[in-house]
């Protein structure tokens, strides 16, 4: 990692820049710094995310925060809503919710995770995996997999739709509804709502299992998938009290790349003691690292790959069987393959499906004891496992309950350095002289997409999604430039 941060102009390196110009949607930029031997010295993935948000909410009353934060993201508004709600619970002095409210929030979060993972795999990443980016042999194998799973697209849409329906049932609408209130929830599920959701749950479980099996096959039969963008990193995630997979509430666990523990069951309210954030001049995003390992070695990965590796078990039977197959793939060691993120996500989708069924059949979910009150405080930290990884919301309020300070560590930020390293790995493998090739650009996209980064600023406007690749020499002269439009068409600009 140290060498990856070398200054480019002082040692004769060249620069490759991949730059989606838009500042409105998907605001990403990749800069590759080459040495004279055409090796990638450094990779910089620039992401502008949540631009100005922490400043924007200063002075607003704390009870507005769970509503405001949903504007951050069109994909995981529920995750921000729940993380903020957990922080606000502490601001109103509530340590634990009623069983009904706790289970409703879990249910909401399972719906959110399911819809987000389904979208990512079936729509964004399955073309990478199903249609291949490697050898003909790999492609033929993948085509064989497709033939066994002809309804992939339809299942993906239906899984996503089901997650959205669940969210709508609890929040009133698919996005930007209202569910969590300080100390609880504003309504429970009625019998009719439960029955509608239960009517489809067997199909949902079946399709989730199909997705797990598809990913197992895709990963196991393709050696390129196993080595592509692979890193050896520590993992950070939340786990339950018994070390089980936990998405809503638990303690923090971090393990080194070799599986040695760093900490376990850590109370996330003290997160500033275990995680620090480095600022680098070239990026709006911070670079978090585990304090104990230091800046150079402390970067880590979060998200489904981290969670499924880190946990000791999953408390739903089908997902647990799938986890055991996942662990067996690496003979019990951590699965560090970056493309195994997709596999781990589908294991979590299956867990969500099973957990949703369990909760829908739990009488507590229709209870009417919804809100707890307590003594107001000036500081609250909410942490959940969002689809993309551990999500931190930290707020301080004044005597009047107005936000004085906010700090968010979003999942994509935690994966920041890992994404850079994966990009560097892939670029070194596929760079070809001084030319920016379509193949290089496509492979870098696959590497970035594996992390499911949230590049979106949560706006959408037409005509604003180009992608550019620029190659500069040591003097800053442009050697080559390639553009890729939102329609997928390439245009050489130089």
């Amino acid at each position, binding site marked *: 990692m140290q060498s990856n941060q070398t200054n480019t102009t002082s040692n004769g390196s060249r620069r490759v820049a991949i730059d*989606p110009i838009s500042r*409105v*949607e*998907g605001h*990403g930029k990749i800069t590759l710094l080459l040495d004279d031997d055409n090796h990638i010295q450094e990779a910089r993935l620039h992401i502008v995310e949540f*631009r*100005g*948000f922490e400043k*924007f909410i200063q002075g607003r009353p704390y009870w507005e925060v769970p509503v*405001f934060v949903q*504007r951050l993201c*069109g*994909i995981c*508004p529920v995750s921000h809503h729940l993380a903020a709600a957990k922080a606000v619970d502490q601001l109103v002095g509530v340590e634990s919710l009623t069983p009904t409210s706790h289970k409703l929030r879990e249910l909401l979060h399972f719906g959110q995770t399911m*819809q987000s993972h389904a*979208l*990512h795999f*079936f*729509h*964004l990443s399955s073309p990478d995996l199903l249609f291949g980016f490697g050898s003909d042999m790999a492609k033929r194998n993948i085509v064989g997999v497709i033939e066994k799973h002809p309804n992939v*697209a*339809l299942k*993906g*849409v*239906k899984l*996503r*739709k*089901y997650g*959205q*329906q669940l969210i709508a049932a609890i929040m009133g609408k*698919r*996005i*930007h509804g209202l569910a969590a209130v300080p100390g609880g929830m504003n309504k429970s599920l009625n019998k009719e709502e439960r029955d509608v959701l239960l009517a*489809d749950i067997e199909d949902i479980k079946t399709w989730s299992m199909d997705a797990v099996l598809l990913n197992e096959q895709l990963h196991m039969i393709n050696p390129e998938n196993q080595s592509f963008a692979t890193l050896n990193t520590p993992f950070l995630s939340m786990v339950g009290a018994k070390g089980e997979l936990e998405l809503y509430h638990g303690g923090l666990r971090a393990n080194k790349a070799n599986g040695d523990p760093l900490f376990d069951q850590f109370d996330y309210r003290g997160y500033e003691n275990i995680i620090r954030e480095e600022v680098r001049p070239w990026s709006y995003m911070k670079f978090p690292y585990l304090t104990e390992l230091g800046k150079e070695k402390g970067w880590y990965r979060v998200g489904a790959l981290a969670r499924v590796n880190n946990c000791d078990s999953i408390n739903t039977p089908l997902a647990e069987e799938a986890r055991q197959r996942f662990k067996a793939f690496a003979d019990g060691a951590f699965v560090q393959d970056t493309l195994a993120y997709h596999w781990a996500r589908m294991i979590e989708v299956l867990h969500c499906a099973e957990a949703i069924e369990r909760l829908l059949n739990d009488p507590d979910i229709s209870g009417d004891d919804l809100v707890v009150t307590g003594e107001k405080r000036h500081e609250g930290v909410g942490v959940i496992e969002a689809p993309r990884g551990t999500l931190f919301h930290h707020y301080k309020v004044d005597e009047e309950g107005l936000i004085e300070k906010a700090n968010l560590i979003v999942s994509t930020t935690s994966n920041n350095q890992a994404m850079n390293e994966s990009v560097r790995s892939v670029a070194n493998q596929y760079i070809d002289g001084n030319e920016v090739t379509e193949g290089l650009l496509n492979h870098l*996209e696959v590497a*970035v*997409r594996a992390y499911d*980064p*949230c*590049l*979106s*600023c*949560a*706006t*959408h*406007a*037409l*005509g*604003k*999604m180009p*992608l550019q690749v620029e190659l500069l020499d040591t003097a800053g002269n442009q050697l080559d430039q390639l553009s*890729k439009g*939102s*329609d*997928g068409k390439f245009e050489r600009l130089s």
Partner: protein
Amino acid sequence: MTIQSRTPSILLLGYGNLGRGDDAVGPALIEAMQDYLADNNRTDVECLTDMQLQIEHVTDLVARDRILFIDADMSCGSACSLRPLLAEKDDSYTTHAMNPAAVIYTYQQVYGSPAPPAYLLSIRTYSFELGDNICAEANQNLSLAIKMAKAFCEKDYNLPTT
């Protein structure tokens, strides 16, 4: 997970982020149209809003006679414009939001048949800053777009072909 038996024949789907300046023009148009349609007892028109378009929106398109997507557009050459949509595969870079043409394409993938006739109403917009309201210029364009959307809902509306 099924469409209601009496699916309104016309769908208006406005999308954008209410918290980001002019990006809110799509949902704002829908809000205005809901009042208009209620006043005119138009049960044959359904209004939906969302932050971004995604794959599940294909399920909202089933059993419609015609569909109108409404979106902010910084590159629109006029105050607003209405054009038919053709299915188009979306290869945009890592984005989690889809173009309406890509939703139409996905509909074909999922259901194995072309989507109902779909159109895009683009509204010229200028600024997407977090926390801003819709700017004055975009509001003027929105007013024109609302008139266009009302006309689109008329039973004898002559749909554009290019």
